[in-house]
């Protein structure tokens, strides 16, 4: 089990686009992952307010959901997104790190179901939530 978590961690940390976004893997294991994305001006979507683009939040959510799937005890290998829905509850506060927590709450031989929530410093009010279905691959 520890090996599996280690493997998933190595895989996530090797993703070129995750590095490009500056993602930091905080915690992973047992079908749960926590990844944060520090504020960066290159990710701004609204120049007037400095709010991060929804697309960057989507990329963070997608990575975190995939990480949660790979760390699940019943997942034999890698994963790919089948579908992902994101609800944007509010604009994230400019300057603050966005942290996502994803949970793989059900897995079959072929499909993994995941939920995720993204927060900034105000953890009482989520920035966004996500729900998705992911493939269950036999290898990486």
């Amino acid at each position: 089990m520890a090996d599996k978590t280690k493997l998933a961690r190595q895989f996530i940390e090797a993703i070129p686009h995750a590095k490009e976004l500056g993602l930091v893997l905080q915690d992973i294991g047992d079908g749960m992952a926590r990844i944060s994305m520090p504020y960066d001006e290159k990710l701004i979507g609204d120049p007037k307010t400095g709010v991060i683009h929804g697309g960057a939040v989507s990329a963070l959510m997608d990575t975190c959901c995939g990480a949660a799937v790979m760390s699940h005890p019943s997942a034999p290998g890698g994963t790919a997104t089948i579908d992902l829905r994101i609800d944007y509850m509010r604009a994230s506060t400019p300057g603050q790190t966005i942290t996502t927590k994803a949970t793989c709450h059900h897995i079959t031989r072929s499909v993994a179901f995941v939920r995720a929530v993204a927060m900034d410093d105000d953890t009482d009010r989520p920035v966004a939530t996500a729900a998705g279905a992911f493939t269950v691959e036999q290898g990486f």
Partner: protein
Amino acid sequence: MSRPRPEPIQVVKQRRDAALNALLESVPYIRFLDVSFDRRGDELTAQLNFNDKHIGNPFLPAIHGGVTAAFLEITAMVTLNWSHLWERIESGALDPDEMAKGNLPRQPKTIDFTVDYLRSGLPRDAYARATISRAGRRYASVHVEAWQDHKDKLFAQGSGHFVMPQDKVEKK
């Protein structure tokens, strides 16, 4: 004197391209992902210019699902905003020079966005077009389709809902 002479083609093209460029240049994240737009009249086609930094799974390799989602969302948002501003750009109510200086109208806000991943994204350029299913005064619904080599073999599609900026309310 039945109707005024049409504007010269250069004037029309310059105004439209300058306005579109101003919208795109103002958003750092569009530059970060390297998404460009092709314009034919008011129709837009987005292009994700492939870069190794877009890779999600280096073993396949394939484009990151998050990049695909962001590309579709950018396409939906820009197409919606462009269509929303079109009449004001054409009438001259919006000046492209002022827009380039950063005096831009507020953008629509994403309420939700859903992406279907139909095929894995190959390590090469991708294209997308959005259609506005409904543009109301307060809400809009937009559908997006993305492809790579074959227009009829989509690698992803998405749909989302947006809140429209209420520009006229500001007069109060």
